[in-house]
Structures are given as C-alpha cells and as structure tokens.
C-alpha cells in the first residue's frame, strides 16, 4: 500500500505544485480554514448539585452548577456563562473556572446564592473556543419548588425488582436501589414494612445529603431489617416519609436466589 502511494507520476507532481501555488494565492485565511476543520466544539459535562439532570427534573432553588469544559482547541474562558430562562445570565467573572489542562480543559463551578423563583426554568450553560465554536448544555423546564414545599416529584421505583437480599450489604450480590425525586432538600425517611404493617427497616436521609437533596436520588436497601434479619420471599411496602407525612410509597419484591 505504501509503495503504491509513493509511486508518483510527473503529471501528478505538477498538479501538486499548482495547488500549492493556489494556496499561496488564497492567503493565510484559507489555510486556517483547512486547519480548523480538524478542531471540535467544546464538550460540556454539567451536573447540578452533583447530579446528572434532565429536562423536567427538580432542582433546588439555590443550585450548585458544576462541570467540565473540554476541547481540542483553546477554550475561550471568557465565553463561559450560565443563564436561567435566557435572562438571568452569570458571566465568566462570577464563575469559578479552574484549569484542568489549560487551555483545553477547565472545571467550572457556580453556586447560586440568590434563590431562583419557584416554578419551571430553562437552565443553560455555554462555552466557546477561540475559534468561536460555541457549545451549549441545557435542561429545559427544570422545576424549582417553593421553599415550604416538600414533595416527591415522581413515582418511587426500585431497581432491580424483584431482587435477592444482600446480607453482606454488597449491591453486586443483591439488594435494590429505591429511586425518587425530591422537590427540595429534605430529611427523608424510607420506611419498609411487611404487608401486615409491621415496620422492618428505616433508612434516614438528611436534607442535602444522599437521598435528601432536591432532584433525583437513589438509596440502596439491602433487604434486611434494622436488626439485620433477612427478609423472606414476598412483597414489602416502602414509604417515603418527610416531616412525618407519607409522600410516596412503593412495593418491592424479594425473591431469593
């Protein structure tokens, strides 16, 4: 293959010479265009309060926007901005931008101090490279709940279901993840009962912590009671309780392997 590619004929050589001359005539801009075609737009990887969010998710009213901007070309750090509903714009000066591998990779962080108004918002993060190529990350219609509202935004589900218990607390052996979405940070109790209403397990999640922060959370349940007894085959009921009130419930099935 290589030998064939090196087997130039005279007519082809003249053609190359003419082409180089043409490039010289077109000037440096043309050459730059040839080079930029190999560069990509910046890539944005954004989390809100440490979570990956999607359109329609809940976020806290003072979200922490975090993420990374990476590109193969030089990133224009001044171009990085965060906006809510395309109006409330946070410019690069207010954003903590930390180089990871300057000038091609930066981490960004912005903590909202002023609470966002309750309701739905479009959240957008933008960044560009020095070539003017712009990338956008956005989450449409994320909702911010009123500060006094503690609600489970979506149906509580657990995965896997059915599942075997894991007496060793090893998710690869068994147990299940209970997933739910909180409208606000809240102290959440996950209470698990048998179908005769005997309380078997209580998992407490503190506000802002794992399972207690606004947005989507998952909490691991190993299939054991508080005292470490293994639950037998059957359906069990779990309740998500906030401020003493049952906000969501679900059923999980244990089938021992």
């Amino acid at each position: 293959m290589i030998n064939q590619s090196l087997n130039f004929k005279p007519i082809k050589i003249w053609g190359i010479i003419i082409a180089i001359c043409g490039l010289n005539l077109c000037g440096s801009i043309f050459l730059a265009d040839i080079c930029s075609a190999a560069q990509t737009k910046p890539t944005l990887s954004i989390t809100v309060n440490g979570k990956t969010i999607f359109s329609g998710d809940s976020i806290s009213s003072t979200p922490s926007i975090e993420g990374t901007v990476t590109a193969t070309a030089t990133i224009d750090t001044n171009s990085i901005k965060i906006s809510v509903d395309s109006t409330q714009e946070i410019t690069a000066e207010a954003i903590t931008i930390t180089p990871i591998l300057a000038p091609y990779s930066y981490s960004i962080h912005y903590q909202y101090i002023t609470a966002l108004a309750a309701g739905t918002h479009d959240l957008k993060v933008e960044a560009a490279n020095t070539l003017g190529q712009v990338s956008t990350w956005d989450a449409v219609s994320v909702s911010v709940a009123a500060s006094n509202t503690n609600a489970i935004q979506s149906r509580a589900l657990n995965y896997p279901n059915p599942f075997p218990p894991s007496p060793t607390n090893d998710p690869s052996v068994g147990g299940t993840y209970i997933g739910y979405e909180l409208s606000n940070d809240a102290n959440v109790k996950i209470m698990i009962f048998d179908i005769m209403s005997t309380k078997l397990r209580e998992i407490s999640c503190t506000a802002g912590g794992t399972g207690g922060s606004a947005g989507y959370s998952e909490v691991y349940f190993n299939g054991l009671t508080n005292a470490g007894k293994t639950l037998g085959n059957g359906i069990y009921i779990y309740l998500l309780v906030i401020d003493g009130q049952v906000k969501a419930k679900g059923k999980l099935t244990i089938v021992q392997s």
Partner: protein
Amino acid sequence: MKNKFEKNKIILGILILAQMVFLCQAAFAASTTDPTRTYFGARPLALGGAFTAVANDANAIFLNPAGIAWFRHPEFVGTSRPLFFEETLYSAAGYASPTNWGIFGIGIIDAHSAGSLPTFRDPVSGRITIDTSTEATDYDNNVLILSYGKTVLEDLSLGLNLKFYNQSLSGGTELHGTNLNADLGLLYHPLYIAWLSLGLNYQNALGGAIKWNNAAGTEDLLGSTIKIGSAFIVLGSKEALFQMEKQKLMLAVDFDLINASVLSDQSSDLKIGLEYSPLSISGLSLRAGYDCNAGVGLGVGFEKSGFRFDYAYYQNSAVSGNNPSYFSLAYTIPPPARKLFEPQETSTPYIRIDKPKDQTITPELSIQIKGIAKQITQKGFWAPSTEAFITYEATNSGTLEKIIQMIPVEIFQTISYEVRPIENLIDVRLNGNSMPYNKLGIFETMLKLNPALNRITIEAITTAEGTVTKESVRVLRYIPFSDTSENHWAIRSIAFISTFKIITGYPDDTFKPDNPITRAELVTLLMKAKGGAFTGSLEVAFKDVKPNHWAAPYIYQANLKGIVKGYPDNTFRPTQNLTRAEGVAILARFAEIEAGRDLDLVPFPDLPEGFWANEFISKAKSAGMLKYLAKKSFDPKVPFTRCEAAEVLFLTPFIQDKENKLWETGVVFAPTISASLEVKP
C-alpha cells in the same frame, strides 16, 4: 386436690415444652411474614391486642384456641378491609361450633398485595424505569386454621390450632411456598378467684418455615411467639374484684415473647386493654388498648340478638396517615328448635357446696361458704320408640287375657355428658340474699353463724326460670370449751352434749375432758338427759347418799329405773370415780339396748370370760357406742373420763335421735326436770 395436681401438671408440661421448642429455634435463614401474628379483628385491636386471657368470642380461633372450649353456641366472626395505605387487602373469618367431641373451629386469614412493578435502568438517563414488558408481581399470603378446644377440668381448657400456611408470588414471578404449623392454647379460670383469667398461646409451636418451590428450595422462617395473658374483672356486680352494680370493667394484659426467627425486630411486646360495659345500656361496650410495639386502640361494640358490631380506631405508631378504622361483625347462632334425631341438649342444674359440708360443727362465729353452681349438660337426640302398655281383659271363660299395646313415644338417646356453667344465670342467693359469684357459677363468701343450728341454702336464679336449683347444708355452732380443741377426738360428742345442756362444763369455761367422772356425776347427767318430771318421794336406799346430797334425786331416780345399783353394803359411793367397765355398764343400761342374737360373750380380747360387765359392754358395742375403742383393748379398770362419757352417751340411740331431730327440724333438745321429787330420810 387431685384436680389441682392434674392442672398443675398440664400447665407445667405445656410451659416446659414451649420453652424447649422456643429456645431451640434459631434465626439461620430469612424470615417471612406471618399473617396470624398481627390480627385485625376490631375487638382485639381496640384492646391493644390483649386477648389471650379474654378469648371469649370467635376471635379466640386466631388468638387463643383454648377460648373456644367454653362456647355454648356456634359463633362467627369476620372482617375485611384494605390495610396499610390500602396496599394490602386483608380478610379474616372464623367459625366455631360445639360438637359432641369438643368445640371445633375453622378460620382463615388472607393478606393479598398486588402490583409490585418490575423495573429496569434506562440506558440513556440511567434512571429506574417501569418495565412495561414484564407483568407486575402479586403476593398472596394466607393461613387456613382448624381449631379444637376442650375443657379438661372445670376451670381449665386446652386448645389446638392446626395451621396451613400458603404463600404465592404470581405475575412477573411465580413461586409457591407452604408450611404446616400448630398453636397450643390454654385458658384457666381459677375456680375460686372469679375475677381472674389466665391464658397462654404458644403460636407456631413447631417453629417451622415456609418451604418454597424454587430450585434452591428456599425456606423462610416463621418463628414462634409465646403469648401470656391475664384478664381481670375489676368492676362488676358479682364476680368482680370491686363490686359496682350495673357496670363492668375488664382489664387485660398480654406479654409476648417473640422468637428471633419471627420477622420482627422486637423480642417482646406488652399489650394492655380495657373493656367497659355500662350494663344500663344493654349490649354496649367501650374499649381502649395500647400495644407497646404497634400503637393505640380505641373501640366500641354493639350487641343485639346475637349480632355484634365492633369498631376499632387503631393508629399504627410507626407512621401516621394510615386509615385507622377497622370493623368486625360477629354472630352467635341461637340453638335450633327441637327436632327428632337432631342433636339436642338437656341440662340439669345443680349446686355443689364444697364448704362447709353438711352437718358440720364449728365453734366459729362465721364460716366460709364456697361452692359452684353448674349444670350437667346431657347431649343426645330425641328418637321415636315404642313403649309396651299392658292391660288385662276378662275373657268369656272367666280368665284374664294379657293385652300388650305398643305405644309410640319419644326417648332421649344420650350421647355424652358435660359439666358447664348454668345458662342465663343471673343470681346466686345465700339464704335468700344475693351473694358473690363468677361467670363460671363459683360462689364464695363468709356467713355469720347463729348459735346451735344454721341452715345454709344456696339458690341459682336464671332469667328464664327463676330458681332452677337449690342446695342446703346444715352447720351446728357450739359453744367451745377453752381446754377442748376443735380437733379433740370426742369434740363432736362434746359439742352436742353441751348444746343439749346435758353437760355444761365448768364455770371457767373448761370441760376437763380427761378428768375421771364420778358415779354421782354420771348418774346426774344421765337423768338430766332423760328429762321429764320427777315427782313423788323416794326412800333412801344408800346409806352414803343422804337426802340432802346434791345428787340424791338423780341417784334414787336412776336406782328406781334400774340404771344404777349400789354395792352390797348398801352404799352407792357417789364420789368414787367410775371405771370404764362401770361407766359403759351404766350407759348401756341407760340406753336400754336389747340383747341381740350375736352378742359377744367376750366383746374385747382383754376382757375375761364371765366378767360381770361383758353383757353391757357387748350391748354397747353392738349399738355402735364404743367406736372410739375399735381395734383397741378395753382396759376395764381405767378411769372413765368425762369425754368418754360424752362420747358413749352421744352414741346412745336416745341422743342420736335427738341429734337427728336437731338436723332435721332445728329443734335443740332441751331436757327439763321437775324439782318436786322428794327423798325421804
């Protein structure tokens, strides 16, 4: 006493068995939900679950099978409602009915929870998502219970539940598991502590596990619970700890010992319940209870014509927001109308007075009355039969011809007997006045005694028939002597002789039972016993009994009647102590005993043949007057003591007749003696 011993053995045996099996269970596997561990019948629920020693309706099938042993009629109870945020459909129904072989019951509890959603993790979002391609899983957990209860003693019943556990997962997951288990129950209503009941239920006595039909043969432990209960009738009209007419308050307390295999993080539980019935509002009950592990219960019950509606407000303390209202319906089926061949019962009420026994004698001012009003229930059926009716008719030939007619009749074919509390018992009366008794018909009180005879009559009163049975005992209250205990061998004789004023004792309230009796003393008391009018005049026959001797009238009257004779030297020796031979001889003559054919020539081995008193001793012995010397030597020369004199005199037919009249009529024999007898010098 034997009953008590048997009862103790039964209770101890069950407790030891329970303890052994209970401790041998180990939590080495997963544990499963037992629908019989938490029962949602409204009445027990309102009592906080404290029902082990109450167990007096069909709920007992689920909570203590020994309770059904006391059922008189078939009973049904049932409840159904969504449980726990309506995630479980719960149903329970029980029925128990008396049979000829004990009380049988059947019960079922079913708990069903549907719609556990299968899920997958969305590959794009990474979030948990419903897997619509797979069917949701349903779970059914039910137990079929066959109950048996029987009273083994008057105040003790035992019960057995055979339990068939059946669990299944269906839909997205198909699994099936079963187990056979047993409950052992005991219910004890102490005969003489009417306000107390004690109960024990050893739930899942076999321990056991649900065995699933998966490839691994998974087993999920059920575990045992020992429920120990007590119930106290605190307020009530008769049987209660504190009597308060027209109100009834029951306190029930249960303590559960929960085996480590049970699907619960608790190792014990305490339950307390109160049930208050204002008897002025017929059929109404108000309830309150507390279960330390579960929550608070409140409730009300209405009963009318055999139907009972129970409501419980029960709040699970673990979480709020659950629907707290529970309902149950119960029905007691009335006895069927009498029909041929159908099993029937005929009942014969009776009263047994354990204390005091009839014809008791006592020096006490009051006496304990204790006994039981019961009925013997004869089970059987009426069957058609024929009865021969025989008549004689004169024939033309003048002879009598026997004519047999078979008359159709109904006869009662008995199958079994059983002793039970009297039905509809509303009162037990002591000499016409109400007295305390409990639901088992056991009565107990103290009664103040009158001097001499007391007739004690106990009556059982029912709503339907008034007095259905009565029983009497008789008690003699005698005036005691300070030196003669109730346990003195001759106390019965001394009591009667003193009651009849034949011997009145000494001024210092002593009887001096072992003192020898003089000839004058014995003759005097015998003549006093005879009573009657001593009139006329008697010649002095004994030179040592002057007319002014205090006993002269009695000695000479006795001499005249041939009861005593003097010595050959014309003396009577009134102050000489009597020997036993002399005393018995005098009493035998006094008793005027006819000589029987089989009179012993030698009545006691130590008496020589031809002894002058043998005839009298034989007569006294044959008349039963010398029982106190049975299997003993006679010792004719020993002093004849005062208590011996009382004993032999009491056993003379003359005094025996007076005793019988006293018991029968209450008339106390009181001999009177005329003082007009004159002894001439």
